Protein backbone atom coordinates (compact mmCIF):
# COMPACT_ATOMS: atom_id res chain seq x y z
CA UNK A 1 0.00 0.00 0.00
CA UNK A 2 1.15 3.51 -0.76
CA UNK A 3 2.01 5.84 2.03
CA UNK A 4 -0.74 8.05 3.36
CA UNK A 5 0.84 11.25 2.05
CA UNK A 6 1.18 9.74 -1.41
CA UNK A 7 -2.44 8.72 -1.41
CA UNK A 8 -3.62 12.16 -0.35
CA UNK A 9 -1.43 13.73 -3.02
CA UNK A 10 -2.87 11.41 -5.66
CA UNK A 11 -6.42 12.13 -4.52
CA UNK A 12 -5.77 15.84 -4.73
CA UNK A 13 -4.33 15.47 -8.22
CA UNK A 14 -7.34 13.42 -9.30
CA UNK A 15 -9.62 16.12 -7.96
CA UNK A 16 -7.77 18.86 -9.85
CA UNK A 17 -7.74 16.99 -13.15
CA UNK A 18 -11.43 16.16 -12.80
CA UNK A 19 -12.14 19.82 -12.12
CA UNK A 20 -10.15 20.75 -15.23
CA UNK A 21 -12.31 18.32 -17.22
CA UNK A 22 -15.59 19.45 -15.75
CA UNK A 23 -15.48 23.22 -15.24
CA UNK A 24 -15.88 23.92 -18.98
CA UNK A 25 -18.80 21.49 -19.17
CA UNK A 26 -20.49 23.18 -16.22
CA UNK A 27 -20.01 26.54 -17.92
CA UNK A 28 -21.80 25.21 -21.02
CA UNK A 29 -24.68 24.20 -18.77
CA UNK A 30 -24.78 27.69 -17.27
CA UNK A 31 -24.59 29.44 -20.64
CA UNK A 32 -27.54 27.41 -21.92
CA UNK A 33 -29.70 29.39 -19.52
CA UNK A 34 -28.15 32.75 -20.44
CA UNK A 35 -30.85 35.39 -20.79
CA UNK A 36 -28.74 37.53 -23.08
CA UNK A 37 -27.60 36.70 -26.59
CA UNK A 38 -24.17 38.08 -25.69
CA UNK A 39 -21.74 35.48 -24.37
CA UNK A 40 -20.29 37.67 -21.65
CA UNK A 41 -19.41 36.66 -18.12
CA UNK A 42 -21.04 36.66 -15.64
CA UNK A 43 -24.33 36.07 -17.42
CA UNK A 44 -26.97 38.73 -16.79
CA UNK A 45 -29.93 36.46 -16.04
CA UNK A 46 -31.59 33.07 -16.51
CA UNK A 47 -34.10 31.88 -19.09
CA UNK A 48 -35.23 28.59 -20.63
CA UNK A 49 -36.18 30.38 -23.84
CA UNK A 50 -33.32 28.89 -25.91
CA UNK A 51 -34.44 25.32 -25.30
CA UNK A 52 -37.74 26.21 -26.91
CA UNK A 53 -36.01 27.82 -29.88
CA UNK A 54 -33.79 24.77 -30.35
CA UNK A 55 -36.74 22.41 -30.02
CA UNK A 56 -38.81 24.31 -32.58
CA UNK A 57 -36.11 24.61 -35.22
CA UNK A 58 -36.75 22.23 -38.09
CA UNK A 59 -33.11 22.23 -39.18
CA UNK A 60 -32.02 21.14 -35.72
CA UNK A 61 -34.41 18.20 -35.86
CA UNK A 62 -33.31 17.28 -39.39
CA UNK A 63 -29.68 17.38 -38.31
CA UNK A 64 -30.28 15.24 -35.22
CA UNK A 65 -32.23 12.71 -37.26
CA UNK A 66 -29.46 12.51 -39.87
CA UNK A 67 -26.83 12.08 -37.15
CA UNK A 68 -28.86 9.34 -35.48
CA UNK A 69 -29.31 7.43 -38.73
CA UNK A 70 -25.64 7.78 -39.70
CA UNK A 71 -24.58 6.73 -36.20
CA UNK A 72 -26.82 3.66 -36.14
CA UNK A 73 -25.80 2.48 -39.59
CA UNK A 74 -22.09 3.04 -38.97
CA UNK A 75 -22.34 1.23 -35.64
CA UNK A 76 -24.20 -1.68 -37.23
CA UNK A 77 -21.55 -2.09 -39.91
CA UNK A 78 -18.82 -1.74 -37.31
CA UNK A 79 -20.30 -4.47 -35.11
CA UNK A 80 -20.59 -6.85 -38.04
CA UNK A 81 -17.16 -6.31 -39.55
CA UNK A 82 -15.23 -5.39 -36.42
CA UNK A 83 -16.19 -8.47 -34.46
CA UNK A 84 -15.53 -10.73 -37.46
CA UNK A 85 -12.05 -9.35 -37.82
CA UNK A 86 -11.42 -9.62 -34.09
CA UNK A 87 -12.40 -13.29 -34.17
CA UNK A 88 -10.06 -14.10 -36.98
CA UNK A 89 -7.17 -12.25 -35.38
CA UNK A 90 -7.75 -13.73 -31.94
CA UNK A 91 -8.26 -17.35 -33.01
CA UNK A 92 -5.99 -17.95 -35.92
CA UNK A 93 -2.40 -17.51 -36.85
CA UNK A 94 -1.92 -16.80 -40.51
CA UNK A 95 0.39 -15.04 -42.87
CA UNK A 96 -0.15 -11.27 -42.86
CA UNK A 97 -1.99 -11.36 -39.53
CA UNK A 98 0.19 -8.62 -38.10
CA UNK A 99 -0.32 -6.35 -41.07
CA UNK A 100 -4.06 -6.90 -40.89
CA UNK A 101 -4.15 -5.73 -37.28
CA UNK A 102 -1.94 -2.81 -38.27
CA UNK A 103 -4.29 -1.92 -41.11
CA UNK A 104 -7.31 -2.00 -38.82
CA UNK A 105 -5.74 0.44 -36.39
CA UNK A 106 -4.81 2.87 -39.20
CA UNK A 107 -8.10 4.82 -39.34
CA UNK A 108 -7.82 5.88 -35.71
CA UNK A 109 -4.09 6.40 -35.79
CA UNK A 110 -4.04 8.45 -38.97
CA UNK A 111 -5.10 12.08 -38.64
CA UNK A 112 -8.81 12.42 -39.36
CA UNK A 113 -8.22 14.99 -42.04
CA UNK A 114 -6.31 12.41 -44.10
CA UNK A 115 -9.12 9.88 -43.80
CA UNK A 116 -11.65 12.55 -44.72
CA UNK A 117 -9.71 13.86 -47.67
CA UNK A 118 -8.82 10.39 -48.92
CA UNK A 119 -12.46 9.30 -48.88
CA UNK A 120 -13.55 12.53 -50.53
CA UNK A 121 -11.01 12.04 -53.32
CA UNK A 122 -12.14 8.45 -53.70
CA UNK A 123 -15.83 9.40 -53.98
CA UNK A 124 -15.15 12.16 -56.49
CA UNK A 125 -12.89 9.82 -58.44
CA UNK A 126 -15.65 7.24 -58.76
CA UNK A 127 -18.47 9.75 -59.29
CA UNK A 128 -20.22 8.69 -56.11
CA UNK A 129 -22.68 11.32 -54.92
CA UNK A 130 -22.13 12.42 -51.35
CA UNK A 131 -25.07 11.17 -49.31
CA UNK A 132 -26.04 9.52 -46.06
CA UNK A 133 -24.09 6.48 -47.21
CA UNK A 134 -20.83 8.32 -47.76
CA UNK A 135 -21.15 9.69 -44.22
CA UNK A 136 -21.76 6.15 -42.97
CA UNK A 137 -18.71 4.80 -44.80
CA UNK A 138 -16.56 7.59 -43.39
CA UNK A 139 -17.72 6.90 -39.85
CA UNK A 140 -17.56 3.13 -40.22
CA UNK A 141 -13.82 3.27 -40.93
CA UNK A 142 -13.08 4.32 -37.37
CA UNK A 143 -16.10 2.66 -35.73
CA UNK A 144 -14.92 -0.76 -36.95
CA UNK A 145 -11.69 -0.32 -35.02
CA UNK A 146 -13.49 0.43 -31.77
CA UNK A 147 -15.64 -2.68 -31.93
CA UNK A 148 -12.63 -4.66 -33.13
CA UNK A 149 -10.52 -3.57 -30.16
CA UNK A 150 -13.31 -4.19 -27.69
CA UNK A 151 -14.09 -7.67 -28.94
CA UNK A 152 -10.43 -8.56 -29.32
CA UNK A 153 -9.70 -7.58 -25.73
CA UNK A 154 -12.61 -9.70 -24.54
CA UNK A 155 -11.59 -12.69 -26.62
CA UNK A 156 -8.07 -12.51 -25.27
CA UNK A 157 -9.43 -12.74 -21.76
CA UNK A 158 -11.71 -15.66 -22.48
CA UNK A 159 -10.10 -19.02 -22.96
CA UNK A 160 -10.19 -20.72 -26.36
CA UNK A 161 -10.57 -24.01 -24.49
CA UNK A 162 -14.20 -23.05 -23.92
CA UNK A 163 -14.84 -23.48 -27.63
CA UNK A 164 -13.05 -26.79 -27.70
CA UNK A 165 -15.04 -27.95 -24.71
CA UNK A 166 -18.23 -26.97 -26.50
CA UNK A 167 -17.21 -28.88 -29.60
CA UNK A 168 -16.18 -31.87 -27.55
CA UNK A 169 -19.63 -31.89 -26.02
CA UNK A 170 -21.03 -32.15 -29.52
CA UNK A 171 -22.24 -28.61 -30.16
CA UNK A 172 -22.12 -27.37 -33.72
CA UNK A 173 -20.82 -23.96 -34.73
CA UNK A 174 -24.14 -22.19 -34.31
CA UNK A 175 -24.74 -23.68 -30.86
CA UNK A 176 -21.22 -22.82 -29.76
CA UNK A 177 -21.83 -19.29 -30.93
CA UNK A 178 -25.25 -19.01 -29.32
CA UNK A 179 -24.40 -20.55 -25.95
CA UNK A 180 -20.69 -19.98 -25.50
CA UNK A 181 -19.46 -17.11 -27.60
CA UNK A 182 -22.46 -14.79 -27.41
CA UNK A 183 -22.71 -14.61 -23.59
CA UNK A 184 -19.02 -13.75 -23.42
CA UNK A 185 -19.16 -11.20 -26.21
CA UNK A 186 -22.47 -9.42 -25.81
CA UNK A 187 -21.31 -6.85 -23.30
CA UNK A 188 -18.17 -6.10 -25.27
CA UNK A 189 -20.36 -5.54 -28.32
CA UNK A 190 -22.73 -3.28 -26.42
CA UNK A 191 -19.88 -1.27 -24.92
CA UNK A 192 -18.07 -0.98 -28.25
CA UNK A 193 -21.28 -0.17 -30.08
CA UNK A 194 -22.21 2.58 -27.66
CA UNK A 195 -18.82 4.18 -27.91
CA UNK A 196 -18.81 3.86 -31.70
CA UNK A 197 -22.21 5.50 -31.90
CA UNK A 198 -21.20 8.34 -29.59
CA UNK A 199 -18.10 9.08 -31.63
CA UNK A 200 -19.95 8.95 -34.91
CA UNK A 201 -22.54 11.32 -33.43
CA UNK A 202 -19.84 13.89 -32.59
CA UNK A 203 -17.55 13.55 -35.60
CA UNK A 204 -16.62 16.73 -37.50
CA UNK A 205 -13.33 16.36 -39.37
CA UNK A 206 -14.16 13.34 -41.52
CA UNK A 207 -17.83 14.28 -41.86
CA UNK A 208 -16.99 17.67 -43.31
CA UNK A 209 -15.48 15.91 -46.32
CA UNK A 210 -18.12 13.21 -46.74
CA UNK A 211 -21.43 14.93 -45.96
CA UNK A 212 -22.05 17.18 -48.95
CA UNK A 213 -24.97 19.57 -48.56
CA UNK A 214 -26.51 17.73 -45.63
CA UNK A 215 -25.87 18.88 -42.10
CA UNK A 216 -25.20 16.40 -39.36
CA UNK A 217 -25.66 17.85 -35.90
CA UNK A 218 -21.98 18.78 -35.41
CA UNK A 219 -21.88 20.41 -38.85
CA UNK A 220 -25.03 22.37 -38.02
CA UNK A 221 -23.47 23.46 -34.74
CA UNK A 222 -20.39 24.59 -36.65
CA UNK A 223 -22.63 26.64 -38.94
CA UNK A 224 -24.31 28.25 -35.93
CA UNK A 225 -20.93 29.04 -34.39
CA UNK A 226 -19.89 30.70 -37.65
CA UNK A 227 -22.90 32.99 -37.64
CA UNK A 228 -22.11 34.19 -34.14
CA UNK A 229 -25.76 34.86 -33.34
CA UNK A 230 -27.34 31.58 -32.45
CA UNK A 231 -24.88 30.63 -29.75
CA UNK A 232 -27.47 30.35 -26.97
CA UNK A 233 -29.27 27.78 -29.14
CA UNK A 234 -25.99 25.91 -29.54
CA UNK A 235 -25.51 25.93 -25.78
CA UNK A 236 -29.02 24.61 -25.27
CA UNK A 237 -28.34 21.76 -27.70
CA UNK A 238 -25.06 21.06 -25.93
CA UNK A 239 -26.84 21.01 -22.60
CA UNK A 240 -29.36 18.51 -23.89
CA UNK A 241 -26.57 16.38 -25.35
CA UNK A 242 -24.60 16.29 -22.10
CA UNK A 243 -27.71 15.32 -20.16
CA UNK A 244 -28.63 12.71 -22.76
CA UNK A 245 -25.17 11.14 -22.80
CA UNK A 246 -25.55 10.32 -19.13
CA UNK A 247 -28.06 7.69 -20.21
CA UNK A 248 -25.79 5.59 -22.49
CA UNK A 249 -22.84 5.94 -20.14
CA UNK A 250 -24.90 4.77 -17.18
CA UNK A 251 -26.42 2.04 -19.32
CA UNK A 252 -23.02 0.76 -20.38
CA UNK A 253 -21.84 0.72 -16.78
CA UNK A 254 -24.91 -1.11 -15.62
CA UNK A 255 -24.91 -3.66 -18.38
CA UNK A 256 -21.36 -4.64 -17.66
CA UNK A 257 -21.87 -4.78 -13.95
CA UNK A 258 -24.98 -6.93 -14.22
CA UNK A 259 -23.70 -9.65 -16.49
CA UNK A 260 -20.87 -10.72 -14.29
CA UNK A 261 -18.99 -12.09 -17.27
CA UNK A 262 -16.03 -10.30 -15.83
CA UNK A 263 -15.30 -10.76 -12.23
CA UNK A 264 -12.99 -7.88 -11.64
CA UNK A 265 -14.85 -4.70 -10.94
CA UNK A 266 -12.66 -2.35 -12.88
CA UNK A 267 -12.00 -4.55 -15.87
CA UNK A 268 -15.39 -3.88 -17.36
CA UNK A 269 -14.89 -0.15 -17.38
CA UNK A 270 -11.55 -0.59 -19.03
CA UNK A 271 -13.11 -2.49 -21.83
CA UNK A 272 -15.81 0.05 -22.37
CA UNK A 273 -13.08 2.27 -23.61
CA UNK A 274 -10.95 -0.02 -25.67
CA UNK A 275 -9.80 1.71 -28.77
CA UNK A 276 -10.84 5.27 -28.57
CA UNK A 277 -10.88 6.64 -32.04
CA UNK A 278 -10.17 9.82 -33.89
CA UNK A 279 -12.74 12.49 -33.34
Amino acid at each position, binding site marked *: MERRSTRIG*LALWALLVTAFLWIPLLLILVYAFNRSNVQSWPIPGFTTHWFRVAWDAQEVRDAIWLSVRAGLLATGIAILLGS*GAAFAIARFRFFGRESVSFLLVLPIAL*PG*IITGMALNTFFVFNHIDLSLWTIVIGHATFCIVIVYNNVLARLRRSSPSLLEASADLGADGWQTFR*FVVWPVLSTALVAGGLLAFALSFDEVVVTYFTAGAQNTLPLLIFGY*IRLGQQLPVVNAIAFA*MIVLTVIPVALAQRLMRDTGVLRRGAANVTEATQGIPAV
Partner: protein
Amino acid sequence: MAVRAADLQTPGRPLRAARLRLTGFFWSHPWTKALLLLGPPLLAFGLVYLASLVALFVSSFWTVNPFTTEIEHAWNLGNFRTIFESPAYRTIAFRTIGIAAAVTITDAILAFPLGYFMARVARPRTRAMLFVAVLLPLWSSYLIRVYIWRLILDQDGILNWTLGKLGLGSVGLAYSNWAVWIIFSYVWLPFMILPVFGALERIPESLLEASRDLGAGGFQTLRRVVLPLALPGVVAGSIFTFSLTLGDYVTPLLAGGASSQFIGNVVYQSVGISNNVPFAAAFATIPLAVMAVYLLIARKLGAFEAM
Protein backbone atom coordinates in the same frame (compact mmCIF):
# COMPACT_ATOMS: atom_id res chain seq x y z
CA MET B 1 -22.79 -23.81 -20.87
CA ALA B 2 -26.48 -24.03 -21.20
CA VAL B 3 -26.43 -26.34 -24.20
CA ARG B 4 -29.64 -28.26 -24.06
CA ALA B 5 -29.15 -31.97 -24.12
CA ALA B 6 -32.02 -32.42 -26.55
CA ASP B 7 -30.15 -30.45 -29.17
CA LEU B 8 -27.19 -32.71 -28.97
CA GLN B 9 -29.20 -35.90 -29.19
CA THR B 10 -31.03 -35.29 -32.44
CA PRO B 11 -28.37 -35.77 -35.08
CA GLY B 12 -30.88 -37.08 -37.57
CA ARG B 13 -32.14 -33.74 -38.76
CA PRO B 14 -30.58 -32.89 -42.13
CA LEU B 15 -30.00 -29.26 -41.32
CA ARG B 16 -28.20 -30.13 -38.15
CA ALA B 17 -26.13 -32.74 -39.96
CA ALA B 18 -25.07 -30.15 -42.48
CA ARG B 19 -24.17 -27.78 -39.73
CA LEU B 20 -22.10 -30.39 -38.00
CA ARG B 21 -20.30 -31.26 -41.23
CA LEU B 22 -19.57 -27.61 -41.75
CA THR B 23 -18.34 -27.28 -38.18
CA GLY B 24 -16.09 -30.25 -38.67
CA PHE B 25 -14.78 -28.82 -41.90
CA PHE B 26 -13.94 -25.53 -40.26
CA TRP B 27 -12.42 -27.27 -37.31
CA SER B 28 -10.02 -29.09 -39.59
CA HIS B 29 -9.51 -26.12 -41.92
CA PRO B 30 -9.11 -23.09 -39.67
CA TRP B 31 -7.66 -21.18 -42.60
CA THR B 32 -10.92 -21.22 -44.47
CA LYS B 33 -12.80 -19.93 -41.49
CA ALA B 34 -10.26 -17.18 -40.94
CA LEU B 35 -10.60 -16.09 -44.52
CA LEU B 36 -14.39 -16.21 -44.41
CA LEU B 37 -14.48 -14.19 -41.23
CA LEU B 38 -11.86 -11.72 -42.31
CA GLY B 39 -13.06 -11.54 -45.87
CA PRO B 40 -15.84 -8.97 -45.64
CA PRO B 41 -14.07 -6.54 -43.30
CA LEU B 42 -10.84 -6.75 -45.20
CA LEU B 43 -12.55 -6.35 -48.51
CA ALA B 44 -14.49 -3.33 -47.32
CA PHE B 45 -11.42 -1.82 -45.79
CA GLY B 46 -9.10 -2.58 -48.63
CA LEU B 47 -11.59 -1.36 -51.19
CA VAL B 48 -12.64 1.89 -49.65
CA TYR B 49 -9.92 2.90 -47.27
CA LEU B 50 -6.76 1.80 -48.98
CA ALA B 51 -8.06 2.74 -52.39
CA SER B 52 -8.79 6.18 -50.99
CA LEU B 53 -5.31 6.54 -49.56
CA VAL B 54 -3.80 5.41 -52.83
CA ALA B 55 -5.98 7.78 -54.83
CA LEU B 56 -4.91 10.55 -52.52
CA PHE B 57 -1.26 9.73 -52.88
CA VAL B 58 -1.53 9.54 -56.65
CA SER B 59 -3.25 12.90 -56.84
CA SER B 60 -0.36 14.54 -55.00
CA PHE B 61 1.60 14.32 -58.25
CA TRP B 62 -0.97 16.32 -60.17
CA THR B 63 -1.57 20.05 -60.37
CA VAL B 64 -4.53 22.37 -60.56
CA ASN B 65 -5.30 25.10 -63.02
CA PRO B 66 -4.85 28.37 -61.14
CA PHE B 67 -7.92 30.11 -62.58
CA THR B 68 -10.60 27.43 -62.75
CA THR B 69 -8.89 25.32 -60.02
CA GLU B 70 -9.66 22.18 -61.98
CA ILE B 71 -7.29 19.25 -61.57
CA GLU B 72 -4.92 18.67 -64.46
CA HIS B 73 -3.53 15.16 -64.70
CA ALA B 74 0.04 16.09 -65.54
CA TRP B 75 2.59 14.12 -63.53
CA ASN B 76 5.14 16.21 -61.70
CA LEU B 77 6.84 16.76 -58.38
CA GLY B 78 5.98 20.46 -58.16
CA ASN B 79 3.90 20.13 -55.00
CA PHE B 80 6.63 18.33 -53.10
CA ARG B 81 9.20 20.82 -54.29
CA THR B 82 7.08 23.70 -53.02
CA ILE B 83 6.75 22.05 -49.62
CA PHE B 84 10.41 21.23 -49.17
CA GLU B 85 11.76 24.45 -50.56
CA SER B 86 9.46 26.85 -48.76
CA PRO B 87 10.46 27.71 -45.19
CA ALA B 88 6.80 28.55 -44.47
CA TYR B 89 5.66 24.96 -44.76
CA ARG B 90 8.61 23.75 -42.71
CA THR B 91 7.65 26.18 -39.95
CA ILE B 92 4.08 24.89 -40.02
CA ALA B 93 5.16 21.24 -39.90
CA PHE B 94 7.54 21.83 -36.99
CA ARG B 95 5.00 23.91 -35.11
CA THR B 96 2.39 21.18 -35.46
CA ILE B 97 4.71 18.38 -34.41
CA GLY B 98 6.02 20.49 -31.52
CA ILE B 99 2.55 21.30 -30.18
CA ALA B 100 1.46 17.70 -30.69
CA ALA B 101 4.42 16.58 -28.58
CA ALA B 102 3.69 19.22 -25.93
CA VAL B 103 0.05 18.17 -25.77
CA THR B 104 1.04 14.53 -25.46
CA ILE B 105 3.46 15.21 -22.61
CA THR B 106 0.97 17.47 -20.83
CA ASP B 107 -1.74 14.85 -21.06
CA ALA B 108 0.60 12.09 -19.89
CA ILE B 109 1.58 14.15 -16.83
CA LEU B 110 -2.05 14.96 -16.06
CA ALA B 111 -3.29 11.45 -16.72
CA PHE B 112 -0.73 9.24 -15.01
CA PRO B 113 -1.37 10.14 -11.34
CA LEU B 114 -5.11 10.23 -11.99
CA GLY B 115 -4.98 6.83 -13.66
CA TYR B 116 -2.89 5.49 -10.80
CA PHE B 117 -5.33 6.85 -8.25
CA MET B 118 -8.29 5.34 -10.10
CA ALA B 119 -6.67 1.98 -10.63
CA ARG B 120 -4.92 1.36 -7.34
CA VAL B 121 -6.05 3.75 -4.61
CA ALA B 122 -9.70 4.70 -5.09
CA ARG B 123 -12.52 2.62 -3.65
CA PRO B 124 -14.74 0.95 -6.28
CA ARG B 125 -17.47 3.57 -5.87
CA THR B 126 -15.06 6.49 -6.29
CA ARG B 127 -13.47 4.71 -9.19
CA ALA B 128 -16.78 4.29 -10.97
CA MET B 129 -17.60 7.95 -10.41
CA LEU B 130 -14.23 9.10 -11.68
CA PHE B 131 -14.65 6.84 -14.64
CA VAL B 132 -17.94 8.44 -15.64
CA ALA B 133 -16.41 11.87 -14.99
CA VAL B 134 -13.65 11.09 -17.48
CA LEU B 135 -15.92 9.45 -20.02
CA LEU B 136 -18.72 12.02 -20.15
CA PRO B 137 -16.67 14.90 -21.62
CA LEU B 138 -15.71 12.52 -24.40
CA TRP B 139 -19.34 12.08 -25.31
CA SER B 140 -20.29 15.75 -25.35
CA SER B 141 -19.84 17.86 -28.42
CA TYR B 142 -16.22 18.48 -29.31
CA LEU B 143 -17.03 21.75 -31.11
CA ILE B 144 -18.79 23.18 -28.12
CA ARG B 145 -16.01 22.17 -25.75
CA VAL B 146 -13.54 24.04 -27.94
CA TYR B 147 -15.84 27.01 -28.22
CA ILE B 148 -16.41 27.29 -24.47
CA TRP B 149 -12.65 27.56 -24.00
CA ARG B 150 -12.64 30.57 -26.26
CA LEU B 151 -15.13 32.19 -23.90
CA ILE B 152 -12.97 31.22 -20.92
CA LEU B 153 -9.71 32.58 -22.33
CA ASP B 154 -11.04 35.80 -23.90
CA GLN B 155 -9.61 39.10 -22.76
CA ASP B 156 -12.86 39.85 -20.89
CA GLY B 157 -13.51 36.14 -20.37
CA ILE B 158 -14.12 33.94 -17.39
CA LEU B 159 -10.47 33.28 -16.56
CA ASN B 160 -9.53 36.95 -16.41
CA TRP B 161 -12.74 37.72 -14.52
CA THR B 162 -11.78 35.14 -11.91
CA LEU B 163 -8.19 36.33 -11.74
CA GLY B 164 -9.44 39.91 -11.39
CA LYS B 165 -11.70 38.92 -8.49
CA LEU B 166 -8.71 37.29 -6.83
CA GLY B 167 -6.62 40.39 -7.45
CA LEU B 168 -4.18 38.58 -9.71
CA GLY B 169 -4.40 40.86 -12.74
CA SER B 170 -5.07 39.31 -16.13
CA VAL B 171 -3.46 37.09 -18.75
CA GLY B 172 -3.58 37.44 -22.51
CA LEU B 173 -3.82 33.80 -23.55
CA ALA B 174 -6.68 34.17 -26.00
CA TYR B 175 -6.03 33.57 -29.69
CA SER B 176 -2.49 32.29 -29.39
CA ASN B 177 -0.62 29.02 -29.57
CA TRP B 178 -0.90 28.88 -25.78
CA ALA B 179 -4.65 28.73 -26.16
CA VAL B 180 -4.33 26.02 -28.81
CA TRP B 181 -2.03 24.01 -26.53
CA ILE B 182 -4.43 24.29 -23.56
CA ILE B 183 -7.49 23.37 -25.60
CA PHE B 184 -5.86 20.42 -27.34
CA SER B 185 -4.64 19.16 -23.97
CA TYR B 186 -8.17 19.54 -22.65
CA VAL B 187 -10.11 17.85 -25.42
CA TRP B 188 -7.75 14.90 -25.86
CA LEU B 189 -7.15 14.28 -22.15
CA PRO B 190 -9.73 11.47 -21.77
CA PHE B 191 -8.06 9.66 -24.67
CA MET B 192 -4.91 9.51 -22.56
CA ILE B 193 -6.48 8.77 -19.18
CA LEU B 194 -8.39 5.70 -20.29
CA PRO B 195 -5.55 3.58 -21.72
CA VAL B 196 -3.20 4.66 -18.92
CA PHE B 197 -5.80 3.63 -16.37
CA GLY B 198 -6.30 0.35 -18.22
CA ALA B 199 -2.59 -0.44 -18.22
CA LEU B 200 -2.13 0.45 -14.54
CA GLU B 201 -5.18 -1.55 -13.57
CA ARG B 202 -3.79 -4.65 -15.26
CA ILE B 203 -0.60 -4.69 -13.18
CA PRO B 204 -0.97 -7.58 -10.73
CA GLU B 205 -0.80 -6.49 -7.10
CA SER B 206 1.61 -9.38 -6.46
CA LEU B 207 4.29 -7.72 -8.56
CA LEU B 208 4.20 -4.61 -6.41
CA GLU B 209 4.30 -6.72 -3.27
CA ALA B 210 7.27 -8.64 -4.59
CA SER B 211 9.03 -5.37 -5.31
CA ARG B 212 8.42 -4.19 -1.77
CA ASP B 213 9.41 -7.53 -0.29
CA LEU B 214 12.68 -7.29 -2.15
CA GLY B 215 13.29 -3.99 -0.39
CA ALA B 216 12.46 -1.49 -3.11
CA GLY B 217 11.22 1.92 -1.95
CA GLY B 218 8.11 3.58 -3.32
CA PHE B 219 10.03 5.54 -5.92
CA GLN B 220 12.07 2.55 -6.99
CA THR B 221 8.94 0.43 -7.39
CA LEU B 222 7.41 3.20 -9.47
CA ARG B 223 10.46 3.51 -11.69
CA ARG B 224 11.41 -0.14 -12.07
CA VAL B 225 8.02 -1.88 -11.97
CA VAL B 226 5.05 0.41 -12.51
CA LEU B 227 6.39 2.69 -15.23
CA PRO B 228 7.69 -0.06 -17.51
CA LEU B 229 4.43 -1.97 -17.19
CA ALA B 230 2.32 1.16 -17.74
CA LEU B 231 4.36 2.33 -20.70
CA PRO B 232 2.25 0.56 -23.36
CA GLY B 233 -0.79 2.38 -21.98
CA VAL B 234 0.93 5.75 -22.14
CA VAL B 235 2.13 5.03 -25.68
CA ALA B 236 -1.35 3.92 -26.71
CA GLY B 237 -2.76 7.16 -25.31
CA SER B 238 -0.06 9.14 -27.02
CA ILE B 239 -1.06 7.70 -30.39
CA PHE B 240 -4.43 9.36 -29.93
CA THR B 241 -3.21 12.69 -28.58
CA PHE B 242 -0.47 12.91 -31.17
CA SER B 243 -2.50 11.85 -34.17
CA LEU B 244 -5.55 13.87 -33.20
CA THR B 245 -3.43 17.01 -32.88
CA LEU B 246 -1.72 16.36 -36.21
CA GLY B 247 -5.04 16.09 -38.00
CA ASP B 248 -7.14 18.75 -36.34
CA TYR B 249 -7.94 22.09 -37.93
CA VAL B 250 -10.96 23.23 -35.95
CA THR B 251 -9.20 24.19 -32.72
CA PRO B 252 -6.50 26.33 -34.39
CA LEU B 253 -9.19 27.85 -36.61
CA LEU B 254 -11.40 28.83 -33.67
CA ALA B 255 -8.83 29.56 -30.98
CA GLY B 256 -5.55 30.20 -32.76
CA GLY B 257 -3.87 33.56 -33.25
CA ALA B 258 -2.02 35.26 -36.06
CA SER B 259 0.62 32.49 -36.19
CA SER B 260 -1.48 29.41 -35.57
CA GLN B 261 -1.31 27.62 -38.88
CA PHE B 262 -1.20 23.86 -38.35
CA ILE B 263 -0.78 21.01 -40.81
CA GLY B 264 -4.51 20.37 -40.54
CA ASN B 265 -5.28 23.97 -41.44
CA VAL B 266 -3.08 23.94 -44.52
CA VAL B 267 -4.66 20.69 -45.65
CA TYR B 268 -8.16 21.95 -44.88
CA GLN B 269 -7.56 25.24 -46.67
CA SER B 270 -6.05 23.51 -49.66
CA VAL B 271 -9.01 21.15 -49.98
CA GLY B 272 -11.90 23.11 -48.52
CA ILE B 273 -11.00 26.57 -49.74
CA SER B 274 -8.46 26.59 -52.58
CA ASN B 275 -9.73 23.27 -54.00
CA ASN B 276 -6.12 22.22 -54.46
CA VAL B 277 -6.41 18.54 -53.56
CA PRO B 278 -3.04 17.64 -55.10
CA PHE B 279 -1.19 20.08 -52.90
CA ALA B 280 -3.15 19.05 -49.82
CA ALA B 281 -2.35 15.42 -50.57
CA ALA B 282 1.32 16.21 -50.91
CA PHE B 283 1.32 18.08 -47.62
CA ALA B 284 -0.66 15.32 -45.91
CA THR B 285 2.22 12.93 -46.57
CA ILE B 286 4.07 14.68 -43.71
CA PRO B 287 1.68 13.62 -40.93
CA LEU B 288 1.29 10.30 -42.74
CA ALA B 289 5.03 9.66 -42.53
CA VAL B 290 5.24 10.92 -38.94
CA MET B 291 2.40 8.65 -37.84
CA ALA B 292 3.78 5.64 -39.73
CA VAL B 293 7.08 5.94 -37.86
CA TYR B 294 5.23 6.58 -34.62
CA LEU B 295 3.02 3.53 -35.07
CA LEU B 296 5.94 1.24 -35.83
CA ILE B 297 7.68 2.35 -32.64
CA ALA B 298 4.42 2.06 -30.70
CA ARG B 299 3.92 -1.49 -31.89
CA LYS B 300 7.42 -2.38 -30.76
CA LEU B 301 6.52 -1.02 -27.31
CA GLY B 302 3.38 -3.14 -27.19
CA ALA B 303 0.97 -0.24 -27.37
CA PHE B 304 -1.46 -2.01 -29.69
CA GLU B 305 -2.30 -4.52 -26.99
CA ALA B 306 -3.02 -1.66 -24.60
CA MET B 307 -5.29 0.34 -26.87
